[in-house]
């Protein structure tokens, strides 16, 4: 029951995020969608992921987008694509969703019985991250640093050249 509510909340937020004309409103709806999703994670027993979702997406990404919107200001056009390409896009989206849904529906792999609820404590995750996934963790750290520097460089470059 809870799942249905949160799912509806998520979908509603997502639809609002992509269809609202005001960009700031879009972002607020996006935050709603992210929050809904976080709730779904909690329902599914992945507490860590749920909180990470809120921290990263709601706390960081969404704020970042807001800043971007403020920085680029409003260039006056919120419009969707031209009518023809809008139609085409919609058609394609429906096709994709259809294939996905049909696949999920007809998949035999989904007919399993429910297994016991797995434990995903912080300790387990921490141990796994530090032992089995130590190298990927390092790599992701490196990637983040690189991305950070890269983003800073790309965004700052012009400013320095044109004071």
């Amino acid at each position, binding site marked *: 029951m809870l799942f249905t509510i949160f799912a509806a909340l998520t*979908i509603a937020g997502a639809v609002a995020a992509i269809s609202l004309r005001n960009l700031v409103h879009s972002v607020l709806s996006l935050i709603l969608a992210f929050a809904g*999703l976080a709730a779904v994670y909690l329902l599914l027993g992945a507490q860590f992921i749920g909180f990470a979702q809120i921290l990263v*997406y709601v706390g960081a990404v969404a704020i970042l987008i807001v800043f971007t919107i403020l920085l680029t200001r409003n260039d006056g056009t919120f419009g969707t694509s031209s009518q023809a390409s809008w139609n085409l896009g919609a058609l394609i989206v429906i096709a994709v969703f259809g294939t996905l849904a049909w696949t999920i529906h007809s998949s035999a792999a989904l007919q*399993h019985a*429910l297994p016991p609820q797995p434990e995903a404590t912080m300790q387990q995750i921490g141990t796994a991250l530090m032992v089995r996934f130590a190298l990927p963790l390092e790599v992701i750290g490196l990637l983040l640093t690189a991305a950070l520097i890269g*983003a800073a460089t790309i965004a700052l470059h012009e400013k320095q050249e044109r004071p």
Partner: protein
Amino acid sequence: MTPLSSCLMLSALLFSVGFAGVLMRRNAILILIGIELMLNAANLNFIAFWRYGSAPEALTGVMFVIFSIGVAAAEAAVGLALIISIYRHRKTTQIDRINSMRG
């Protein structure tokens, strides 16, 4: 409908909505938002398969999602930086005006 398939359906819906945003809006920021949604849909899939799949004690799905979130954060940072940079050049964030890569 089993819990797994409903999760997957949610994920598919979310993905389609994100995809629709990417395809049907012209503002680069909105496209980025769409992409974020698609990523989240994928994350949801991982969690669902971890929760209902076999050998959940290996934590594979969780790990995947953790790294995916990391990558997504990086991607968002770089993508937005690019958008700012492009905006400085072209004074627009409309994606269909940015077509200098045309063949």
